[in-house]
């Protein structure tokens, strides 16, 4: 069920009505849990069993961890949780990938085992909720978090529908305390504007420019560098608007339901270095990887080479988290290279005592341009999965061919929609720059005096009508 469909609207109205009718926190949480399960089952009812499995395992392991004093037994319990959650994730997400690679290796050495390939369906949001439950168990194991004794609260924490299928990855420490207080619906204008912002990003920007990138990347060999660059810029905007749009809608809906979710994006395309980028892009995942992978591996305390090793492992696994494929691993590797390169550069600047340069405008601008060039480059393996196509796109991207011939290629046809693509890129650039220099537009609108916020809402309504695409596209991050 997509957030911006009529079916979701009906679902949400029924949910709100029930929350109005029933009083008492327990009943409200039961309604929310039931609605979260229905929301998930709308896609495929069978896979609710996976969420229930994950919930049951971590709830009981959490309770046992609280009682258990023996460190070895506690470790065994933690390993059980890791095996349960990661086993499920590995089976559904990576089994096909491992099998395919194993088969390739065996064939290379002259063996053909004649395996039957399993066609495993990837359950929506599995990477998100397994990480969420894992973080709970690890925190309880580390005694950083008190065990949750309410099965209802824990189940709702795992399956809370606004963020269930595409994040933000909520921490138990942030969410469980909110469930203790009686939730009150809070219909406030800011939440509405947050939802509008998310829908605008996803539907008006991302969905309207996605077709151009799809056409170019599905068969890139007939295009020159200008078109490859343009398609890449489209995907660069599309993936940000698609994913951050989902997060914005999730935050807005949760706010109306009376719960606060963390911010998942903070204008990542204004970052000037890789470290800054990962503090702004998919913040909930970056922090998860930092707290539960990078730091346990030794973090910055393992010496220079150890730190680089930890960074590489973290980013490679971060890439693999996104999808079972070598292209995602390459994506992670490229980000690891950037992070290591940046640390080397910082050390180099320190040695040469050039740190003062960081405040010079031209340095800032150049570092932004280099960072965004790298981000654009990393999106190629993320978007183009076939090796031959990917290499071609990388070549055309990095070694500009100076072929400016654009006519006669069908770019102006309505199916490619080059004009509308340029229009939406321009619209995105303006809005993004505005939000960077003047603060987010939704807050600005909310703070306007008198009738102005409502005039803005009327304009938004007109824009939605005019530019809402005819076909629905699912969120990209649903596949992770």
């Amino acid at each position, binding site marked *: 069920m997509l957030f911006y469909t009529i079916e979701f609207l009906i679902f949400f109205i029924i949910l709100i009505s029930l*929350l*109005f009718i029933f*009083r008492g926190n327990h009943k409200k949480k039961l309604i929310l849990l039931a609605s979260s399960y229905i929301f998930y089952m709308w896609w495929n009812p069978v896979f609710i069993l996976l969420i229930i499995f994950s919930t049951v395992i971590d709830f009981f392991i959490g309770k046992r961890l609280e009682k258990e004093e023996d460190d070895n037994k506690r470790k065994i319990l933690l390993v059980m949780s890791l095996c349960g959650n990661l086993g499920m994730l590995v089976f559904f997400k990576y089994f096909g990938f491992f099998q395919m690679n194993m088969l390739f290796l065996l064939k290379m050495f002259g063996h053909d085992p004649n395996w039957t390939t399993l066609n495993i369906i990837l359950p929506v949001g599995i990477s998100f909720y397994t990480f969420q439950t894992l973080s709970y168990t690890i925190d309880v194991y580390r005694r950083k978090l008190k065990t949750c004794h309410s099965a209802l609260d824990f189940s709702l924490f795992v399956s809370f529908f606004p963020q269930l299928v595409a994040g933000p990855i909520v921490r138990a420490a942030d969410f469980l305390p909110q469930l203790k207080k009686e939730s*009150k*619906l*809070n*219909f*406030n*204008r800011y*939440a*509405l*504007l947050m939802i*509008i912002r998310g829908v605008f990003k996803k539907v008006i920007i991302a969905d309207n420019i996605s077709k151009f990138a799809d056409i170019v990347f599905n068969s890139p060999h007939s295009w020159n560098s200008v078109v490859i660059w343009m398609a890449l810029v489209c995907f660069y905007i599309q993936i940000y608007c698609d994913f951050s749009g989902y997060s914005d809608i999730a935050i807005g809906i949760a706010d109306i339901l009376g719960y606060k979710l963390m911010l998942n994006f903070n204008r990542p395309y204004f970052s000037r270095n890789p470290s800054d980028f990962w503090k702004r892009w998919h913040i909930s995942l970056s922090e998860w990887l930092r707290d539960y992978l990078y730091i346990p591996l030794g973090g910055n305390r393992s010496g220079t080479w150890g730190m680089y090793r930890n960074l590489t492992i973290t980013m490679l696994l971060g890439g693999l988290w996104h999808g079972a494929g070598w292209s995602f691993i390459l994506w992670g590797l490229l980000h690891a290279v950037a992070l290591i390169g940046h640390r080397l550069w910082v050390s180099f600047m320190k040695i040469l005592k050039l740190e003062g340069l960081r405040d010079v405008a031209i340095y800032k601008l150049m570092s932004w341009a280099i960072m965004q060039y790298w981000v654009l480059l990393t999106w190629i393996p993320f978007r183009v999965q076939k090796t031959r196509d990917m290499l071609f796109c990388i070549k055309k991207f990095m070694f500009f061919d100076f072929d400016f011939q*654009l*006519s*006669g290629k069908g*770019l*102006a*046809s*309505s199916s490619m*929609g*080059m*004009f*509308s693509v340029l*229009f939406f890129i321009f619209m995105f650039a303006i809005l993004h720059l505005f939000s960077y220099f003047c603060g987010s537009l939704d807050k600005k609108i909310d703070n306007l005096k008198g009738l102005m*916020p*409502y*005039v803005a*809402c*009327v*304009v*938004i*309504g*007109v*824009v*939605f*009508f*005019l*530019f*809402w695409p*005819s076909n629905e596209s699912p969120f990209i991050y649903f596949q992770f």
Partner: protein
Amino acid sequence: MVFRGHMISKKFIIALMACVIGLMFGVLIFDNVYQCLPSESERFRHILNACNASQEMKPDTVFFGSSVIMSGIDANIVNSKLSINSWNLGSPEQSCAEAMIISNNLPSSVRNVYVCYTPDELANIKFIQIIYPNLNSIIMYGYKFSRNIINVFNKINPLLAEEIRKPKIAHLIKGRFVLKHAGSVLMRNLLRKDLNLKSAARDLYFPLAGHRLSGRKGRQELIEGYLSKQSDRECYKLNKGNRNLLFELAKILRETDVHLNLLILPENPDVRINNRDKFNQQFNSEIDLLRGRGLLNEIYDYHKLLGAEYFLDYSHLTKEGSMILTKKIVADLEKE
């Protein structure tokens, strides 16, 4: 405002209502926006305007067909040689179903209608269909549909009839693609300086955008691309629906004393290299079937008129090709 313990801010409700008002306002103004914007199917608007304002022009003959006749028949030459007033009302991907709707809106001065299709177009299922952007434009620009036409579509293509019967608001909402079309038209005007897109949209006599030569290799690629989309090339057979649509159109036109003629356009010999004899035999028997009913006034068969050198691609004619075709039409009409 607190309701049963829950917070409902007035600002939230007013903002939500303002968004809904904005949506409704969009719906209200969009019809006017649609009429003003350039679009890939705006030729329908110019055709309808010409039909509605034809008191002085009084056309007596019209040619219907796809982009092949837009650049294939020069009505200026036809008019000067025969002293008649004919219009070339071809439009991109125009099917016979579209021709039927346009013919319902023609001025009363029209006495002869020529539907002009290649053998492939005549046999294609698209003959009785209308691609959605075209149908949307036909409805949005205000073409009239007589009861007879709806009944014919009900029998021959019920899905099309159902689509036409939908309320105008449904077409208005779907018609937002026109914004993208407007951008594409603007972009194409910028990028394709070699084409006269204004003429292609507005000209009533020879709506020619240009004769773009693709070179031998490009031409071959276009032919191969075209052939890969064609399913059965071994046997030539007209659908019953296609045949019936022609007959029904002839009957409807006959009620107002208008004659329907079928003009088979030249076929590029390169698109039917195999089994040419078998094709000719089957094609002739299909044409005989059409003739046999006696509903069509005349059938002009030019499918063997031109050699491959007169084609830009699989079906569109070169400038020389279009001149030969036009002269042939003039000569044949002169005989009558």
